[in-house]
Structures are given as C-alpha cells and as structure tokens.
C-alpha cells in the first residue's frame, strides 16, 4: 500500500518535472532570453560627457501641458518647453508678453492636455522647423519654433470637443489637422438636451493651413461629419499624400456609459478625406460660413510678444449638402484608436483597441473600391466602402489591445499593445508577427527615430508607458510615467534602457539632431529687439508714470540692474517692470523677482525684453534681485523699490551707482 502510494507519487513528480522541462524547452524563459542579449545595452546608450546625442526626442507632456526634449540614445533630459502650462521657471504664462497666448473664447486658460507633437515636414520627412502640438480639453493647436524652443503661437479650434485627433501635418506641412473627440452641437453654445445627441450633435474635422515661410497657422475650413468620436488622425504619404485619415469610435452614437454603449458594434470607421479636393471645394465656394468666435494668439516682432487676434466664423463643408464625394468611411473592427500610414503611403493600419487582429487597409485597393463603386451604404452622404474590398491583411495574434503603429522602412511595422503590455513587430509582406517584447507597463504610443516619415531611420524605438509601479525607486502614490528605449537596428528588438519621463507622454517624435542644431539661436540680437518697451542702451533706463500706471524701463547686465534704487511708487499703482537683458552671450540670462509680487519671477534671455506686472498693496521697502546665477557677483545683483502711501507726494526718482 505504502509502496504503491510512494510509487504513484514518484510518477506524479516525474511527470510534473517532464512537463516543466517541456514547457521550458518549447517556450523558453522570455525574461532570461532578453537579459542575455542586453549585455551591450549600456554601451549603446552611453554618450560620453561633452558629446552630443544623435537624436532629439520630443515627448508630449499629456496632462502636464508641456513638451519635453530629450537626447537619444542617452535619454538625457535637455529641456522642458511649456506649451499649455504656465511655467514659473521661465515666466511663460506669467510675463505680459506670454499671457495673451492663453486667451481663448472662454477666457484665460493656463492649462491643457497636450498629446501629439508632430514636426513640420518637407516631402514627407520631418524638417525640424516647427513642432505642433494639440490641446485636448479646450481645443487648441500650438506651434513651437525649433530655433528658440519656445511656443510662438496658439490657435483655438472652434466647434470641437476634445481636439484629440490632432496635430498631425501633411507631407509638406500644407495643413495641420484637428478632430473632435466628442461630438457636440456644431453651433457652439447651443443649449439642447443631451439626449438630442443624434439630431443636434455633429463632429468637426479641422484643417489648419500653415504659412510655409513663417509657420503662421490659419483655420482654413472644417468638415462637418456624423456625431461619432473622432479619435486619431494621420496624413498619407507619397501616393496618399493628398489624403488624411481619422479613426472613429462610438458610431453607436452613445452619449452615456460609452465603455459599454460605444463598444457594441463590430466595426467602426476610418474616415479617409481627400484634403486637396476638400480645399478645392472650399476655393470653389462649396463651403458655408458658420459663426463661431475663436482666438488666434501669436508672437509678433523679432524677439516676440504675443497678441490676441480674435476671429469669427469658420468655413464649413457639410457632407449632407455637398454632392461631390471627398470623404469615405472604411469599416474597421472594434473602436479603432490609432490610424497609421506606412512610409510607402500604401498601408493604412488601424489600431482596433478591442479587436483580435490588426486590420490593414490598402490605399490602392481603396481607390479601386471607390472607382468600382463598392459602396455598401451612405451615411449623411458619406460613402461607406466594403470592408473586403479595402482590407489587404489582418495581423493575427497581435496581443490584447493594439493601439499605435510605427514603421522602420525595412518592411516591418511595430504596434504598441496596451492590455498585454508589449510591442509586436510584424511584417508588412506576410502580415505575421515576427517578434514581440515586453513594455513596462501598459504601453500607449511608441516612436521610431524619424518615424511617420517617408524615410524612417531604423535605429531606436521608444515605448511610452502609463504606469511605473516597481520600475524605479518609489515616489509615492503618483509616480512619473516611464519610457523604454529599444534598439531596432538588428533583427530583434532589444531593450536598452528604462527611464522615467516628465508629465504623461502620449505621442513623441525623434528627429536626427543635425536637422535642428544649426538652426538653434544662441541669443536674441539686441539690435533687432523691437519690443515696444525695450530700451536700446542701458543708459536709457528710466521710469514713466501715467496716472496709476508706472512703467519701469530697466536694463540688466553682469552684475547689476539699472536702475536699482527706485522711489515714488505708490500703493494702488499698477507697475510694469520692462526688463531688457543687454547680454549678448549664449546662455547668460538674468531674472527678476520682487518681494510680495503676486507673480512668478521673470526670466529674460540675452537680448530679450520681458515684463512683470506688479500691483503693490502695502507700503514699505521692496527688495528685488536677479534670480539667475549669472555671474560671480550674482548675489550683489539686487535693488530696492520704495512703495509709499497712495496719497504720498514722494517724487518718482531712480538711480544707480551713487551711494
């Protein structure tokens, strides 16, 4: 009996051992496998002190509203550019010059949720001139100049609820696109019941023209479409360069509990729009003008101060009223998220986040289907094409929750997969998965160096993940979002580095550094300073009073302010300190902070003039000082302002250097 039992136990153990061994032999131990081939990872990311990285990486900040700039492959943080976020470090959004950038038709909005940076393109490749980024919440698009790495322009997008499908550019930066995540009543401020959704709500897809010399944006037209959620967009390339593509979900037209109600249909759509034809229809007078106020805020002058240009009315193309077809719906499985176009412009990849496959449409087959009239339906005049006539492949076993795809230009696509937390590499020829690698954890977007270009550079890939959990030293209940750097130059993806980022990166782009480096400014030329409140020479410093408004025209140079002793300011005055930094040397900045000022410091770049608004409420002596460690005698760079009572007759005087 006992013998029998021990025999069967031994048999059981033996069997278990065999099963474990078989499991190991047939599946391998993935983590150990990957550990073996990361032996040279440190060498691949090492950039020696004083050496420069090969690539600039631009990561969106998500809910931090900024854009962070990284050197790749070292993953060194180079700069954080505030865009849709006030930044007390640089006084962006606090100085009088930058405050107008945040004005909208809803008033001053100093924050937004920035998702998709996209570098301006020439012939389908990033040219490094500007980078655009969207604001999701109060719809806007910003343009950042890559000569100075600062935000030069913010354009409000009207008739839109959640500008998520933005801010992607066309091949020659003819347009930067916007798309409404929420459909809302197209006529803004319309007070209607929410359950009038299907009757009153509409979607709007926005086409913003970009001036090829200055980059200045101009809202050219909007296309009014059925009330779905428009999720992401991309412009075509090469043969499809005249087209842009938007994903949709919620074709169910739900307005409550979308996680259930918008997930019922087997297929939603990718909307393909021939933007060139749409623009021609607008030029030919097929559009109508819809009223709608929106703000266009941009810098004027050589060194820049923002103004508000308030616009009214948008040119609209309504598919219900236009007989000509310029937009088509491509049925695509299960609430597609990303829509990504391969470098040849032929493959349109949908990221069906609830789908079990990655659907790939063919652009040429789409054109054929249009030619052959393979139209299964029309929705508000928009032809719906037959799925089987546009689809060219379905990638099996992509993992759970495929979202976004980038391409290496070598015939492979890389798709981020959220739920199974991995990146899958698959062939554009066989539509089969050839490699997969873990992401830590829950990946959203991914980037490939020079990705979304006609000529991607298959060097590095970055996965932008949503939760860090145990990856780094813990920093409390809320931690920074991680990113992983992979080498994709070999046959298999190789994890090189895992690093915490800033904010909450969604999309990101990387561009070869030499496309930007030579364009980067070192100073603002003092000779070109056309700020209306600049002083041309430091000896021109002075103070002017006009009623309760006092303007201090101040200059700074190492290591003093002129003037640095000021008397005659009164409680109740509105004081503007216009500080001109006379330095003409790279990276020598001065700042000013005044005790009790309800404001941030004001940091002024060499050759620039910036203004702090200050409304003193108490009498007394107010120290001010230079906030930047500008020189050996930085700590001596200080001054005093005397504030007297409102009815005081202390004369307005200023001086420097006479004790």
């Amino acid at each position, binding site marked *: 009996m006992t013998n029998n039992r021990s025999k069967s136990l031994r048999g059981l153990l033996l069997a278990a051992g065999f099963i474990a061994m078989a499991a190991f032999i047939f599946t391998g131990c993935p983590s150990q496998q990957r550990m073996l081939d990361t032996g040279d990872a440190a060498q691949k990311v090492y950039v020696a002190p004083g050496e420069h990285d090969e690539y600039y990486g631009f990561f969106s900040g998500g809910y931090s509203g900024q854009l962070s700039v990284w050197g790749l492959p070292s993953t060194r943080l180079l700069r954080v550019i505030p865009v849709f976020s006030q930044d007390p470090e640089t006084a962006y959004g606090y100085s009088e010059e930058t405050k107008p950038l945040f004005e909208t038709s809803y008033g001053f909005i100093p924050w937004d949720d920035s998702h998709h940076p996209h570098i301006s393109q020439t012939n389908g490749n990033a040219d490094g001139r500007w980078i655009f980024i969207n604001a999701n919440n109060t719809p806007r698009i910003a343009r950042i100049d890559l000569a100075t790495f600062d935000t030069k322009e913010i354009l409000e997008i009207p008739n839109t609820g959640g500008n998520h499908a933005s801010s992607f550019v066309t091949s020659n930066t003819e347009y930067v696109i916007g798309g409404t995540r929420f459909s809302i009543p197209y006529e803004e401020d319309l007070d209607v019941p929410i359950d009038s959704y299907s009757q009153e709500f509409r979607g709007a897809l926005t086409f913003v023209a970009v001036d090829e010399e200055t980059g200045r944006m101009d809202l050219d037209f909007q296309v009014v479409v059925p009330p779905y959620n428009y999720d992401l967009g991309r412009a075509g390339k090469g043969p499809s360069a005249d087209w842009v593509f938007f994903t949709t979900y919620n074709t169910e037209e739900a307005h409550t509990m979308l996680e259930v109600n918008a997930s019922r249909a087997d297929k939603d759509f990718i909307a393909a729009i021939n933007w060139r034809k749409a623009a021609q229809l607008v030029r030919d007078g097929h559009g109508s003008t819809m009223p709608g106020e929106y703000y266009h805020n941009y810098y004027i002058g050589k060194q820049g101060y923002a103004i508000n240009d308030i616009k009214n009315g948008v040119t609209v193309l309504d598919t219900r009223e236009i007989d000509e077809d310029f937009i088509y719906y491509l049925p695509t499985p299960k609430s597609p998220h990303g829509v990504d176009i391969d470098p040849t412009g032929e493959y349109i990849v949908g990221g069906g986040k609830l789908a079990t496959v990655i659907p790939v449409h063919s652009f040429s087959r789409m054109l054929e289907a249009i030619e052959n009239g393979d139209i299964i339906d029309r929705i508000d005049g928009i032809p719906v094409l037959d799925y089987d006539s546009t689809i060219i492949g379905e990638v099996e076993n992509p993992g759970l929750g495929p979202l976004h795809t980038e391409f290496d230009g070598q015939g492979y696509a890389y798709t981020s997969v959220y739920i199974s937390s991995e990146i899958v590499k698959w062939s554009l020829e066989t539509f089969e998965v050839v490699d997969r690698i873990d992401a830590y954890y829950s990946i959203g977007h991914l980037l490939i160096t020079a990705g979304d270009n006609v000529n991607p550079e298959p060097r590095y890939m970055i996965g932008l993940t949503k939760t860090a959990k145990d990856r780094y030293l813990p920093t409390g209940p809320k931690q920074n979002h991680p990113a992983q750097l992979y080498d994709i130059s070999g046959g298999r993806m190789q994890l090189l580095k895992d690093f915490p980022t800033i904010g909450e990166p969604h999309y990101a782009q990387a561009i070869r550094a030499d496309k930007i480096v030579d364009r980067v400014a070192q*100073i603002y030329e003092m000779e070109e300073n056309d700020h209306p409140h600049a002083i041309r020479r430091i000896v021109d410093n002075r103070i002017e009073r006009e009623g309760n408004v006092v303007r201090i025209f101040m200059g700074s140079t*190492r*290591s003093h302010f002129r003037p640095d002793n000021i008397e005659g300011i009164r409680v109740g005055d509105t004081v503007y300190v216009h500080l001109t930094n006379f*330095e*003409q*040397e790279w990276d020598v900045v001065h700042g000013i902070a005044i005790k009790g000022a309800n404001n941030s410091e004001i940091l002024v770049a060499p050759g620039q003039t910036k203004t702090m608004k200050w409304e003193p409420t108490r009498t007394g002596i107010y120290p001010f000082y230079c906030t930047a460690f500008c020189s*050996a005698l930085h700590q001596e760079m200080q001054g005093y302002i005397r504030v007297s009572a409102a009815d005081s007759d202390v004369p307005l005087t200023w001086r420097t250097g006479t004790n």
Partner: protein
Amino acid sequence: MKIESRIAMGLAALMLVALYYMPFWTISMSAPQYPEGIGMHIHIDNVTGHNRHDLQSINTLNHYIGMAEIHKEDFPEFEIIPWVIGFMIGFGILVAVLGNFKLAIAWFVLMIILGIIGLVDFYLWGYDYGHNLSPDAPIKVPGMSYQPPLIGCKQLLNIKACSWPYTGSIFIGFSMLLAGGAAWYEKTKNR
C-alpha cells in the same frame, strides 16, 4: 633695377591692400566657461570680436577687474594707419615704376620702422589697459596686472590670453619678402 625686381616691388606694395580686408592680429582668450572661444581681431581701422558679440562680452568680463572698456573710438591709430598703409602702397608702386634702388631700400627700411612703431604702440596700449585699473573694481588681486602678452600666451586669472599675428600679417610678411628679395637681388647683381 631689373624688370623682375620692379615687378616684385609692385607686388610687395599691392600685398598691403589685403590689410584693408582682413585683421592682422588676434588676441584669443580661453576660459572654462567659454568652450566656444572668445577673442578680438585687430584690423588697421577697427577692433572686432571673433564672434559677433565678443567685444561686448570681453568688456563685461573686464569690468570686474576694473579694466577700461575697449571701443574702436578710443584708438586714434585707426584713423591714421589706413592712410599710412595707403601711403606705403603708393610709395611702393612709385618705386616699382621708377626702378630706383635707393628708394626701394628706403621703402623696406620704412616698413621695418613702421612695424616696430606698431609693436611698441600695441605694447603701450596693452600696458595701459592692463595696469590702469579702476579703483572701484569688484575683483582686486594684490600685485596682479592684466597686460596681455605682446606675442605668445599668458594666464590672467581664469583666462589664458594668447596674442598672435593673424592673416593680414601673412601678407605683410610676403610683402617684406618680396621687397627684401628684390633689394638683395639688385645688390648682389651690382656687385
């Protein structure tokens, strides 16, 4: 003088035209904070920065040690030297045309004298800037003066200053070689 010597004299004179187009002296300064380099070029009629705004930066740095600011307007030499060079060009061409050996020697000797005067003048200015310091200087190092080297390199606090002839001086050199060669040739020929 033989035709070859006269051509050489003419060329020697014309070489000096280059001085109107390029600096003949450079003072470069290196310090840890200036990986991009900083310095001055001296022309016959101007003093400029190596980079567009170097002069302003040099003046900013120099004020800490109480050195006077460097401005083109402060040097009367810049008004005179272009005329002197112009005279030497005209004189040289005249020598070439006349083919007078004695005048050629006079031209050559005058050039040497002018060169010595130039160097002495440069030294005196350097001495003046380096020693004539403001009593209000924030940085005072006992016993320290800041005269830049006449030729060569010198460490001045955190800055290594180097002073060398520059492109224009190469043309002066060629000019002297041509004129000297012509004189030598004429002299040995007549012996």
